[in-house]
């Protein structure tokens, strides 16, 4: 009855023969597409791509049809089409990343990150002026957005997960509705409500308010998911000890979900860090430092990019790419942080 000599097998897995056949058909298809492109007026990446797909399908079907017939051919086609869909989507992402990094790096230097544009114009060659003022402005916006949206978002999430009152369905619906508000509408609203009705004018503060509208739904939704993950027995333990609900929530539930709530905040910030449209209505544009968050236009990274793009000259466009690279790095860092915090499970 010794089982130590029994060999585990996986007869259904791809055998070396299967793998060799696949490699062969891929190589043949590449060859075919190259040959056809050389022999006909077709040209360009599109031609190679399409021909490769077609010839791979034909060649692979020849191998499959003997074994499995028409339904095997259909199965193979489906597998290839889904693969190609995923490949096209990946290519888009890589293209964006590659373009940003390769085009943006050229303009990054110490001056770019340490100076403002007070003495330089967008059209000056790179090396003159920088975006430090814009980085400052964006940081101010983010700070305001966090101050307003995190309490609102978390408290709303608490209502939905802890209190679960009669209005919960309505509130849920409203949060979802709010997540669909276009960014330009948020900017218009702040302009209409505040700039046209009060003495307040463009400032980082107003920009922060506009961004809050966009950030609250993200924070609420993520916080809700995270709070729902906190095991019910934790809450019951707190209540069973005689604690009031608010004490249970404040001292037991929220700390347990702490890392998830940080994730919610980070995701919210990533959502709004790059928003441009609302800023055009509420923050304006500015070329040097403005240390007053409540008064006066601010430079912000998205508006630097925007003006660089609209400027049209190689220098202004270069600044745009470099600025967006800075922004992308910030978003990527937040992304990684969000994952790091998100993977910490609620404390038992």
């Amino acid at each position, binding site marked *: 009855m010794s*089982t130590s000599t029994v*060999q*585990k*097998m*996986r007869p*259904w897995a791809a055998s070396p023969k299967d793998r060799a056949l696949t490699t062969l058909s891929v190589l043949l298809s590449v060859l075919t597409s190259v040959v056809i492109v050389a022999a006909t007026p077709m040209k360009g990446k599109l031609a190679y791509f399409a021909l490769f797909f077609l010839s791979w399908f034909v060649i692979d079907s020849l191998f499959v049809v003997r074994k*499995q017939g028409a339904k095997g051919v259909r199965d193979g086609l489906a597998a290839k089409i889904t693969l190609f869909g995923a490949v096209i989507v990946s290519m888009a992402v890589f293209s964006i990343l590659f373009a940003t990094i390769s085009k943006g790096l050229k303009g990054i230097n110490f001056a770019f990150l340490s100076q403002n544009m007070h003495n330089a114009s967008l059209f000056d060659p790179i090396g003159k002026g920088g975006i430090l003022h814009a980085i400052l402005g964006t940081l101010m916006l983010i700070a305001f957005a966090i101050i307003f949206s995190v309490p609102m978002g978390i408290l709303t999430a608490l209502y939905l997960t802890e209190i679960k009152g009669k209005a919960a369905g309505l509130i849920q619906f409203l949060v979802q509705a709010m997540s669909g508000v276009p960014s330009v509408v948020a900017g218009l609203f702040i302009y209409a409500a505040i700039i046209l009705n009060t003495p307040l004018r463009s400032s980082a503060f107003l920009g922060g308010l506009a961004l809050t509208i966009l950030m609250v739904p993200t924070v609420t939704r993520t916080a809700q998911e995270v709070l729902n993950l906190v095991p019910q027995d934790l809450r019951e333990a707190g209540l069973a000890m005689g604690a009031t609900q608010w004490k249970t929530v404040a001292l037991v539930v929220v700390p347990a979900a702490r890392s998830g709530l940080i994730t919610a905040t980070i995701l919210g910030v990533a959502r709004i860090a790059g928003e441009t449209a609302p800023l055009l209505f509420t923050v304006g544009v500015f070329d040097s430092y403005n240390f007053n968050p409540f008064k006066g236009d601010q430079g912000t990274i998205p508006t630097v990019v925007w003006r660089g793009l609209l400027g049209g000259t190689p220098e202004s466009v270069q600044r745009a790419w470099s600025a967006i690279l800075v922004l992308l790095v910030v978003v990527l860092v937040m992304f990684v942080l969000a994952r790091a915090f998100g993977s910490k499970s609620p404390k038992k």
Partner: protein
Amino acid sequence: MSQINHLDQNGTHMSDQPKDTTPSSLSDVAAKRAESKIAGTQPLGTGLEARGVHAWFDKHHALEDVSLDFSAGTVTALIGPSGCGKSTFIRTLNRMHEFIPHTSMAGQVLLDGKDIYEPGIDVTKIRLQIGMVFQKPNPFPSMTIGENVLSGLKLAQLKVDNHEDLLEECLTRAGLWTEVKDRLGAHAGGLSGGQQQRLCIARALAVKPKVLLMDEPCSALDPGSTLRIEETISQLSKSMTIVIVTHNMQQAARVSDYTAFFLSDGGPGQMIEVGPTNEIFSRPRDERTENYVTGRFG
């Protein structure tokens, strides 16, 4: 006076002194079944045979060295306590075991003498010849009753001249025709549990399998539906080989010709004993089998 195979009314062989510790009811039932079974009419092929089958879930050795020969035209019941590998085993018979990630197996399963695990074989064709009915009825909710029965044909791209005749034949064999013949266009979700299970049986029959595997097909159903399905199994066994996993020993005694007893002692599941059903229930050879069928555990 009595022939060798003739059984007296107590269901025990006249010859031996039976160490008959089984409650007479189980062996009675098994004996009645053996009596009433008509000598097989059209066994198809040479049946199904498992040789030295092992199964692993990742590193966990779940099934050890199971060899069973399912003769054509017979019904074999697999019994044993939960978790001893019966369901795993039955899924190696139609190559469903491999859908679970990180599984592996060893051994052979021969259908009409050919190993179904041979490389290069079209596994979808194997599953057409070895059909399966599951514990929980699972008709396709997006299809009508008629479409459900014929779905196997559509999936396999099989051409059939007359759909209506096939529909009637399969539903009749499954014991469902009279109840649904006027509403073949209705959605399958409106049927009761027992009816849905019979629909699944009809669906499995439509592709004309040689073997039908049934994994606890009645455990989610009421006794009335259970009896109807058992009748169906008896009828079907005249033209195909049936393997049925069951927790219900009375059911095994009622429907099967042969019974195999599985057990796991904490390690991999093993097949302890196999034999004609009435023998397993009246005079099992292994003590563990006896303990199980007399209800001392499980």
